[in-house]
């Protein structure tokens, strides 16, 4: 399994671009853009993202971990997934 943070970051970013931006300009999306607090993604997209990451990286989120504290920015998600893979 490739645990390079860039791979994880790119995977998360692409998922958000596909699910949320859907062809609109995504150049303002940075690693620190708030995703949940700013309402860029809703709770269903957050759940889909978690399922996607679990499948892609062979990890499992505990119920209490599916939380905006762990999912609010690409940087936070990347760090969280990386720590799970280890």
């Amino acid at each position, binding site marked *: 399994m490739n645990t390079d943070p860039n791979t994880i970051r790119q995977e998360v970013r692409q998922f958000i671009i596909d699910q*949320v*931006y*859907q062809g*609109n*300009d*995504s150049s*303002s*999306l940075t690693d620190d*853009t708030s995703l949940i607090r*700013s*309402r*860029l993604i*809703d*709770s*269903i*997209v957050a*759940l*889909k993202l*978690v*399922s996607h990451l679990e499948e892609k990286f062979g990890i499992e*989120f*505990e*119920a*209490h971990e*599916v*939380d905006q504290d762990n999912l609010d920015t690409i940087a936070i998600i990347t760090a969280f997934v990386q720590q799970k893979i280890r």
Partner: protein
Amino acid sequence: MSGQTIYQRIVEYAHKFPDHIALVESDQSFITYGDLVRQSTRIAAYLTTNNITNGSRVALLVPKNKDAIVIILAVMLCEATYIPLDTHAPHERTRALISDIAPHALIASPETFPSDIPCQFQNGFSTLLTSNLGISFFSEEKNKFDIAQILYTSGSTGSPKGVCLSSQNILHFVNWSLNYFSIPSQNRLTSIAPLHFDLSTFDIWTGLNAGAQILLLDESIVKNARLLVACMNTWNPHIVYATPSTWRIMYEYGKPDNTSFSALQHFLFAGEIFVPQALHNWINILPKTRFHNLYGPTETNVCTAYEIEQPIDSERQTPYPIGKIIAGLEYKIGSNEIANSGELYISGPSVFSGYWNQEEKTNHVFDFSEGKRWYKTGDWVREENGALIFLGRIDRMLKKQGYRIEPAEIEQCLERHPDILEAAVMGEKTTDHFIILCAFVATGKKIAPDLSALKQYLAQHLPAYMIPEKFIFSEVLPKSSNGKIDFQTLNQRP
């Protein structure tokens, strides 16, 4: 039993079984029927000394917990009106609703209450409760009619409207549901829907009138499907009432296992269409459970019910009927009939009295004929083999995750944005059969606003469920020959 109020029945039950558990929170803390009555009586006394009586309006901006229910019971005991507000709504919306209600008392958490709303929290109220809530009093004119509850719902003219429900309205639904589901006392129920949503009438009032134990779940749990299913696994409920979206999210993202819902007797859903394939997923894993489709707008509460016949046809694609009219209500299919179908009209004791402060809108939704007052639901139905089938809306109203959404509210908000000329919002079905909101936004010669900034702008004015999932920007929107936005063309785009 039918002559009693909801409150009197709870008192009667508490008298017989004071130690029976009434409400439970997700941290396992609970309150018994005895304490529920004692605490609500104490708060009612406090409210009465502050002139909260018959006809007073009490607005509640409180989290869904034991205290919230104690307070609502106290308001009921004072024969006053309670108005549960969405604690997650943006400040601007809350401010507008409070101004529309003109409450005699406002109960909220002083720390999180918007400081720009004039409010003087009284000392001492929180000592009556377990959580830190404050109360502020105002002097306003009292109601002239019996209103037990006002529930706000999306309005087609751009701002929310308050549906006024009398104690008789609520009691009729509660009596029907007690009878229909014959719920044994101390059955385990759940409260998933927020208190400002009409599904909560069943969870809380039918539940407490049945002597049930009710698990109160707040939004942070409901939004996290895994946590929700984990709570359900621990609680092991007998009856659960939720929107099809919530049921689907639990199945598809909550990881239920073969022990989940093993005690479930009644699986209830309402608020939107349940795609048969998604419903069948649940039916297949819960062979001993009965499945019920309940239908009814906030204005009438449940007015038809349908129990899914088993065994199911697993190939079925067409949604299940909404069923038969419930006891005590009458229906007719409106005169604009096309091929045996038309608008559904409802009459009877659960039909609301009107919209708060909106006489014109109220007159518009009622039809007086055959000596009866009919509520025109705006839902287009057909009757087949004695059951009603929901076909769609006669207007533009949408349902998303069970929430009623008038696209005009979102369009007007978008059109107030400086970079937007005009907007049209429509519902769209995703490949996995969820309904999402699609906004067509015309910006003229200006550059389309940044998506993240635009969503943040909307979040300042609208509840989260009204923020579109999809945006399509263009210079102009297609128009019909009379100059209006051409929704048909938008709908038919590739």
